[in-house]
């Protein structure tokens, strides 16, 4: 029998007890009859014994894995999604606040422009009233009080008319004008002074604060408080959006 590949495979499998039935009986019969094959088989058997007794080497070190080796940071972190959401939410609120603030600001600018027109009218009216008062003061005895009483409403009505032309329907008429134009009373020289001072005070308040006409001090304070609240909220949201965004980036890289 030649040492063909087929016999080689059969002998190797027989050595490992992998042959069954007829194949096994056939190989055993051949080994009994063929001495060369028997020697070959014994060498094969010894080779296997050598390999099985090859020194077992110990691993030079432990191959324990660390979280860093497998790209793991311990347990899955909840921090990244939470900070990411917080950052996005704060940024969204900030944008909405900016937009709302922008439109409110636009309308307040329109109001301010209207207020300026009102103030201009008031100022011109005030000047005219002052001039009239001045002329009255220069001829106190010559002229009776009636003409003044008649003239003053005309002047004031003219001023009021100018004011009303410039005030939109939504805006309330200037209280200063209403205060300054009592139609039942006959203004005297003192009354003229009082009228002028009231108008001047209101007008200066308008110029100083640039607040819409018709707002009381409490309302103006309220507007200022709201403005402050909006600014503080914007700054706070900006800080939150940036800080949580940085935290989200940190935790994302750490994953």
């Amino acid at each position: 029998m030649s040492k063909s590949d087929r016999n080689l495979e059969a002998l190797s499998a027989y050595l490992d007890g992998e042959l069954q039935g007829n194949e096994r009986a056939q190989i055993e019969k051949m080994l009994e009859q063929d001495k060369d094959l028997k020697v070959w088989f014994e060498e094969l058997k010894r080779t296997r014994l050598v390999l099985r007794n090859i020194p077992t080497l110990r691993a030079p070190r432990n191959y324990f894995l660390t979280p860093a080796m497998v790209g793991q940071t311990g347990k899955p972190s909840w921090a990244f999604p939470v900070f990411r959401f917080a950052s996005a939410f704060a940024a969204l609120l900030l944008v909405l606040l900016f937009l709302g603030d922008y439109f409110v600001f636009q309308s307040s600018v329109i109001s301010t422009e209207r207020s300026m027109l009102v103030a201009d009218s008031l100022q011109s009216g005030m000047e005219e009233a002052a001039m009239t008062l001045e002329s009255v003061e220069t001829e106190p005895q010559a002229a009776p009080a009636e003409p003044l009483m008649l003239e003053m409403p005309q002047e004031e009505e003219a001023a009021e008319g100018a004011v009303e032309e410039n005030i939109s329907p939504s805006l309330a008429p200037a209280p200063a004008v209403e205060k300054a134009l009592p139609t039942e009373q006959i203004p005297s020289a003192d009354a003229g002074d009082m009228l002028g001072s009231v108008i001047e005070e209101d007008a200066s308040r308008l110029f100083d604060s640039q607040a819409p006409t018709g707002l009381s001090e409490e309302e103006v304070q309220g507007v200022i408080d709201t403005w402050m609240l909006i600014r503080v909220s914007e700054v706070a949201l900006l800080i939150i959006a940036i800080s949580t965004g940085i935290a989200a980036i940190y935790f994302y890289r750490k994953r």
Partner: protein
Amino acid sequence: MDETGLIKDAQRGDLDAFNSLVLVYQDRVYNQAFRVLGDSQSADDAAQEAFISAYKNLRSFRGGSFRAWLLRIVTNACYDELRRRKRHPATALEPVDDAGEEIESPHWIADPSELPEQNVERSELGQAIQTCLDQLPEDFRVVVVLVDVQGFDYLEAADAIGKPLGTVKSRLARARNRMRECLQGFWELLPDLMRLEV
């Protein structure tokens, strides 16, 4: 130790459970890598790489022989290393003595618990076997190490290399025959027990 429990824990991301499996199998994995690659440094790298790969792909393990699955991974790591060597061949730095002669029995193979004579014989025999293994084609070497060194049966070996049973039988028979021819010159190194069995 409950291996199945450790595997399940490791599949859920428990690194400590996986490290318990590493402790059990690291010698086998290292030996497989060393016998296939033939040098300790490459074997060390391949073993570490295999465990990392095993952990990352642990979810793909669907039961069966964990040992075979693990050795399949290290075998693939060895194939990768052998392919890399073919692409970038390098000259091995063999240890030399004071006279510049190559040392045939490097100290890193030595077992310090043996007597010096036994140590020398065992080292020389081990090196002779490794030399013969290194001369085998890669595919033959992998199979003969799995079956004759690691003690796998044919089915486990087929599972480990991902080839049919017939391929394992054929490669193993050829590998053994080549080893038989190679070891002819080293019979005097065999221990008495092996010589008596013939």
